[in-house]
């Protein structure tokens, strides 16, 4: 379980913090989604989790210990992050790529032990990427590549999986496949922190949504609590309505046209 406790984050040379006192939990067995407009601080939270931006104040807790007190390798065995962008310059065979997920568990010369092999096999099976075993990372489509990246993160073996915009460049089928995979993982007990722009999909899949606006939480709660027209309209600064999907009953956001005539 990850707990963000009044987290404040500021980039060097920035006039004001990018994240101004954000608190929420990422419990196991649930999908927690962070949404918000561009520049609202979503990806900054991920950078802090990666240890690439120090906390200005507040605390990120991993279980009962603060992130800053933990060795990064220990963090990596508990929290796996699928970062937003990743293009290997030198392509790797898919099995070798997934096996890199075991890096935090081994020393410089240790080979793959039984535990590593078991974790890799489980990850391959859960992310359903066994069919790509003969391919190289540059021979995958966008959707296949995302699943392989998720498999690498699962091979790390942590209780929490963090994904930053995992479906940005994917078509509908591949996007749905990724969301269904995350849903299945959550039901198996994995904690999932999802940073996404896809409000409508998030509203269908997430258990808890945190809506960020200019570094602060504008709303947080179940999809029904957060997906309210007046809140989203204020945060996204665009006229919109929230209706209800007639087939599945999930809230659906529809941005309106004709802003100038309002």
């Amino acid at each position, binding site marked *: 379980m990850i707990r963000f406790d009044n987290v404040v984050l500021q980039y060097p040379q920035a006039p004001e913090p990018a994240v101004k006192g954000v608190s929420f939990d990422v419990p196991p067995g649930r999908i927690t989604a962070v949404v918000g407009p561009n520049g609202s601080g979503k990806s900054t939270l991920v950078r802090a989790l990666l240890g690439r931006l120090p906390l200005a104040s507040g605390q990120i807790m991993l279980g009962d210990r603060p992130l800053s007190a933990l060795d990064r390798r*220990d963090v*990596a065995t508990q929290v796996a992050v699928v970062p*937003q962008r990743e293009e290997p*310059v030198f392509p*790797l065979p898919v099995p070798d790529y997934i096996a890199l997920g075991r*890096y935090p568990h*081994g020393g410089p010369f240790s080979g793959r032990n039984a535990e590593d092999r078991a974790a890799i096999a489980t990850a391959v099976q859960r992310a359903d990427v066994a069919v790509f075993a003969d391919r190289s990372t540059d021979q995958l489509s966008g959707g296949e590549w995302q699943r392989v990246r998720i498999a690498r*993160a699962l091979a*790390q073996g942590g209780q929490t999986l963090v994904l930053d915009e995992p479906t940005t460049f994917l078509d509908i089928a591949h996007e749905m496949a990724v969301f269904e995979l995350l849903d299945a993982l959550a039901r198996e007990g994995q904690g999932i922190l999802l940073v996404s722009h896809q409000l409508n999909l998030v509203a269908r899949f997430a258990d808890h949504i945190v809506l960020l606006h200019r570094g602060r939480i504008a709303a947080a709660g179940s999809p029904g609590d957060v997906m309210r027209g007046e809140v989203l309209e204020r945060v996204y600064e665009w006229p919109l309505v929230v209706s209800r999907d007639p087939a599945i009953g999930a809230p659906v956001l529809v941005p309106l046209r004709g802003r100038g005539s309002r």
Partner: protein
Amino acid sequence: MTLRVWIPLLVVVGIAVLLGIAGGAVPMAPTDVLRALLGDGDPTQVAIVQNLRLPRIALGLAVGAGLAVSGAALQTTLRNPLAEPYLLGVSGGAAAGAVAAVTLGLASSALLPLAAFAGAVTAVVVVLLVARAVAGHADPRVLLMAGVVVGAFCTALIMVALATAPENTVRGALWWMMGSLGDAQWRGVRWVALYVALGIGLLVTWARDIDVLALGEDAAASLGLPVERVTRRIYFAASLLAAATVAGAGLIGFVGLIVPAIGRALGLRNTREALLASALAGAALVVLADLLARTLLRPAELPLGAVTALIGVPFFLWRLRRMR
């Protein structure tokens, strides 16, 4: 590791060594080579082989292995297939150090390598400091650009020094900048080999870190790797490795650029395997290039750096075409 890669590589190195011993201003038959290696046979041939050609080939093996491993480590760490030690200020710094020593009248054979080494280390430290000042950390793109700029600055310093230096000094400095194994003596070779073995040993130990760095900074951080510290460490070790070769044999370009590409073409994706294969291929390449330098226009000897560039540039252009 597949034997299909290692056995041919070892055979190529062995052939390169035997050809390197046999060829030269005084060509020798294979049987004479073997006899001279065992210290028996014609005393002149024994002397040529044991005191001239063997140290020269040993230096070539060490320099080639060092340059190739340095290039392979830098290309993967900086995620740029065109990165090589010479692009990153190492050569410029070494040349500036050597030219400074020559123009200050300190051009004894013992001091020149030390001055080159000091120049290379200075350039590398400056590159790291520039990258830190500009980007706040060891950003691969900034490291590359800082290396190019520091190299260009060193070239300018060299031109200023040479413009005011006496002519015979200029000639000595230029010959050194063109690279040569001609001055190889066992004493110097031992030092270069020691540094090269140390550098290769470190980089091979860190091979898994390099594997992870190749994924990109965020992915490496998510796997628990301290990205900036490790990038700096590998950059520094790889640069020192290249600097040791420059101190031993002057500037020999393109080895660090093209040999890692050969390793990738052989299908080696794992960094540890790629580094070791690069060491073998680089060693063979430099020994063979030196053989060409000695024999192409016999009895004249071509500068080794020119021969590797003549081989390297077409190869480089071919790779560039493949990359598109």
